[in-house]
């Protein structure tokens, strides 16, 4: 038979293209023909086999799609999918609630994701980001001396380039008789674009800031000032100085820690070109050789301080012979480098733009994960609770030959399908919520910030993570059923109930944690907005650009006072909540204590306008005219120096010695984050008006607000026609300090509510299920004489116990985290027990109401209805 062996190839071809069922018969016939012929004509027989196979290559015998399935797992997936759809259809309410919870959690995750991605995108557009460093003074100060960049470039070869920036400032640009208020102006050296390149729309990229009065406009400002026509070469006036426009550039992206709107060349004045080594007025950015060792470079800075700054310090204070003596007294003077890439997230004080709060970014990241976990737990709890209903199906599958891994696969697919639906719904939900989210988070995210290719990968990750988190435990749990027991119905106990209780406790703990967190944040905000400031903030109207009316101040003031609602008008170069300068003073006594109080130049009326309370001595007097060398201080300054009798004591500066003539009670200087600090009031009279600036006009309003404001506007317009008035109440300025906290609170509470809603959905479905299973038990109890109340209490006790257990987890964590957060504030709420009791009561109320209604309905049922169905 060896020679009679049929050729393999034609039959292999046949089996490859032919439907298996036909192939069997055809193969048989062909083999029969072959064997009949092979003895006499072996070659012919072979040829015939080939020819016949080719002849059978007909449409009706060729495999179609169906015939490929049995060899792949798709066939099985198809049935899993079908079963998933059926089981979803069978429990429409639970499936809907499951998907609802998951989609809300996913929507929250997506929103938080784009927020976090945005925060991490800062300055990433800079091509040399990795090599740009900001020089800091004394570890955190952003201001550095004028000559620093130039000198470091000269002294250290690894410093390749550098630029100084100052600003940003609010300016008034005047152009052909129009005045336009424009923020975001910065002064910069001509090397600015070497470090921070921009896209030039007009003008040449080199040398655009090299002239003494050059200005580069961004497109936004250029469009505002010159809606049409040639821009480059035109002149504009910025805050009184004429500048020539040398270029127009694209605006930097929103994710820039230097969000300029226009750039002015550094003024050619001695304080800029040379300055003095102890005068810190500039932000210094260095471009460092990528191969340089940054630690080594920083290591050279103490020597730098010794060489350039030392002589100046020793020149000021004759008390010190060497710089070491100065340091020995506890003084500090050191430079450091902060990588540009860390500025936005880790050194928000150094950012010229929006300040990130890394702690809150992390918090929201955590909240996102927790919310997702809560939703996943809902799924896990429902899937395991309902397992008894699926037990027969699983038992049957196992009997029919399915193995554990296949059944686990099935339930994972089920969770994947549900998560996929939730993902789509969540995406839609996130897009719907985007406008509100933008309002609260101060973002300007668009649809394309959510829907884009890069996010697709994130979506996929979230999808996989969510379906695994929610699917893996139920899948393994269900797959481990023993088939016989499952078919007999022995697992109907609704197994894993201990696990479920644990997960519910976890959910409650997170909910409680978030609620306590929200409560703490709101209590703190309320404390801060209502704290006693020691100032008449609601009556003080602050007007910028007081210099503009410097020449006519007397007339202007008299004009304002003619309105009955305006009771006093004063001048100051700074104000509480609005930022003030630190000046160095030294006590003029044997101690020579040095301190840096807030230094404010004020006119004599400020005591009344701000509503300060004099503790001892007197305030400045316009009538005496001799107060230029006198100062008024606050209580804290006196306490700091430890003086028993401060009046008459002297504080010294390079300009001379100043005598204390009065002490005012402490008043708030800024946010509750900082406490009281020493303050020195200097007298602002006509003589120093120009030098130290009466930048702000302070108007005390005592009467009808609207009349007063109308009168202020009319008067301003008479003195400065067309010049925009920029005024605000000091109260608003104080409240604005807490904008960050308010937004944090709003977002945090929003997500907390979401977490609680999702947890409640889970509790609702779970309790409905538990009660459904206990229907007979309850009915029998009633038949045996239990009252509705007893049954009600019995079931509520179970859920009550879960809440109590979660309290023990959540409260210590909340206490620790709350304490940590409150450490940011000098004036802070106490973490009293009420802070935990109120959210706990609220949580208990929400969850018990969720359960109570269903419990009552079940308990009050006629037991017959539940028992007669057998």
């Amino acid at each position, binding site marked *: 038979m060896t020679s009679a062996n049929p050729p393999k190839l034609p039959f292999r071809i046949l089996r490859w293209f032919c439907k298996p069922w036909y192939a069997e018969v055809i193969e*048989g*016939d062909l083999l*029969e*023909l072959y064997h009949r012929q092979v003895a006499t004509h072996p070659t012919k027989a072979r040829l015939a086999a080939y020819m016949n196979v080719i002849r*059978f290559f007909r449409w009706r015998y060729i495999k179609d799609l169906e015939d490929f399935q049995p060899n792949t797992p798709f066939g099985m997936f198809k049935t899993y999918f079908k079963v998933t759809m059926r089981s979803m259809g069978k429990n429409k309410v639970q499936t809907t609630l499951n998907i609802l919870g998951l989609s809300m959690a996913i929507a929250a995750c997506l929103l938080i994701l784009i927020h976090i991605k945005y925060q991490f995108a800062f300055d990433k557009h800079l091509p040399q980001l990795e090599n740009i460093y900001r020089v800091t003074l004394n570890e955190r100060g952003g201001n550095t001396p004028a000559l620093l960049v130039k000198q470091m470039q000269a002294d250290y070869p690894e410093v390749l380039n550098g630029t100084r920036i100052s600003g940003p400032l609010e300016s008034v640009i005047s152009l052909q008789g129009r005045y336009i208020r424009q923020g975001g102006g910065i002064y910069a050296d001509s090397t600015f674009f070497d470090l921070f390149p921009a896209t030039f729309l007009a003008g040449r990229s080199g040398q655009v800031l090299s002239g003494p009065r050059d200005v580069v406009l961004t497109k936004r400002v250029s469009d505002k000032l010159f809606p049409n026509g040639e821009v480059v070469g035109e002149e504009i006036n910025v805050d009184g100085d004429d500048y020539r426009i040398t270029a127009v550039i694209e605006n930097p992206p929103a994710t820039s820690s230097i969000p300029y709107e226009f750039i002015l060349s550094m003024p050619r004045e001695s304080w800029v070109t040379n300055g003095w080594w102890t005068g810190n007025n500039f932000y210094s950015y260095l471009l460092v050789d990528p191969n340089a060792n940054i630690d080594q470079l920083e290591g050279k800075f103490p020597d730098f301080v010794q060489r350039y700054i030392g002589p100046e310090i020793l020149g000021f204070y004759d008390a010190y012979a060497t710089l070491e003596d100065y340091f020995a007294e506890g003084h500090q003077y050191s430079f450091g480098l902060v990588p540009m890439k860390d500025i936005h997230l880790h050194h928000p004080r150094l950012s010229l733009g929006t300040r990130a709060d890394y702690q809150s970014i992390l918090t929201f990241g955590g909240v996102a994960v927790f919310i997702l976990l809560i939703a996943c737990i809902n799924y896990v709890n429902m899937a395991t609770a309902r397992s008894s209903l699926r037990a027969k199906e699983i038992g049957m599958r196992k009997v029919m030959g399915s193995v554990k891994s296949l059944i686990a696969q099935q339930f994972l697919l089920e969770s994947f399908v549900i998560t996929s639906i939730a993902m789509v719904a969540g995406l839609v939900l996130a897009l719907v919520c985007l406008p509100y989210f933008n309002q609260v988070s101060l973002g300007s995210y668009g649809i394309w910030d959510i829907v884009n290719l890069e996010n697709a990968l994130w979506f996929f990750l979230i999808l996989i993570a969510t379906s695994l988190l929610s699917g893996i435990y139920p899948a393994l749990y269900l797959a481990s059923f023993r088939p016989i027991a499952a078919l007999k119905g022995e697992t109907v106990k609704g197994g894993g109930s201990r696990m479920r209780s644990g997960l519910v406790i976890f959910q409650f703990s997170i909910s409680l944690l978030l609620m306590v967190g929200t409560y703490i944040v709101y209590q703190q905000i309320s404390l801060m907005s209502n704290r006693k400031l020691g100032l008449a903030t609601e009556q003080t109207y602050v007007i910028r650009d007081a210099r503009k009316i410097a020449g006519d101040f007397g007339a202007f003031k008299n004009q304002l006072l003619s309105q009955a609602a305006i009771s006093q008008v004063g001048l100051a170069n700074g104000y509480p909540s609005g930022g003030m300068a630190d000046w160095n003073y030294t006590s003029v006594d044997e101690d020579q204590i040095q301190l840096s109080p807030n230094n404010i130049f004020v006119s004599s009326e400020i005591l009344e306008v701000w509503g300060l309370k004099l503790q001892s001595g007197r305030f400045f007097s316009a009538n005496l005219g001799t107060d230029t060398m006198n100062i008024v201080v606050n209580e804290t300054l006196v306490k700091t120096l430890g003086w028993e009798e401060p009046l008459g004591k002297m504080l010294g500066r390079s300009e001379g010695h100043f005598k204390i003539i009065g002490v005012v009670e402490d008043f708030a200087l800024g946010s509750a984050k900082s406490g009281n600090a020493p303050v020195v009031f200097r007298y602002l009279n006509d003589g120093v008006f120009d030098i130290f600036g009466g930048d702000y006009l302070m108007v005390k309003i005592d009467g009808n607000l609207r009349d007063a404001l109308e009168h202020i506007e009319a008067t301003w317009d008479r003195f400065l026609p067309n010049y925009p008035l920029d005024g605000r109440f000091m109260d608003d300025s104080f409240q604005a300090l807490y904008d960050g906290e308010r937004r944090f609170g709003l977002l945090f509470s929003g997500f907390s509510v979401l977490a609680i809603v999702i947890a409640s959905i889970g509790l609702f479905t779970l309790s409905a299920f538990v009660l459904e299973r206990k229907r007979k038990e309850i009915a029998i109890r009633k038949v045996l004489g239990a009252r509705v109340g007893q049954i009600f209490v019995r079931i509520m006790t179970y859920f009550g116990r879960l809440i109590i257990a979660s309290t023990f987890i959540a409260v210590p964590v909340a206490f620790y985290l709350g304490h940590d957060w409150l450490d940011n504030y000098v004036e802070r709420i106490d973490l009293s027990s009420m802070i935990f009791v109120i959210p706990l009561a609220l949580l208990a109320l929400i969850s018990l109401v969720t359960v109570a209604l269903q419990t009552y309905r079940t308990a009050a049922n006629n037991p017959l209805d539940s028992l007669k169905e057998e």
Partner: protein
Amino acid sequence: MNDMKEEKVQIGEFEELVLLVTAILHEDAYGVRVMDEIGAQTGRKVNISGVHTALDRLEKKGYLSSYMGGATAERGGRSKRYFKVTNLGVQVLEINRRVRNTLYDQIPKVLLETR
């Protein structure tokens, strides 16, 4: 059973031949056998794939039914697919025969005798 109308019969010449041979072979009609029988009875040399196609078509039309069985060594253990003429198939054969006979009977005797 409802009888079949003449005009409903759809069958090709070769298919009719295969149907007839299948009927003749009775319990022993499968691909190769049908092919052999056609060769033996008519001398026509037909291809096995053509026979299969015709058998499949006839089955689809309902004139034949099939069942598997009869694996032998020379077929490499592959089953045969046996065909049986259904009642409908029998009716078709009868209709065709009747139509043919009716037509044949009307041929003038002269024509037949001149041969």
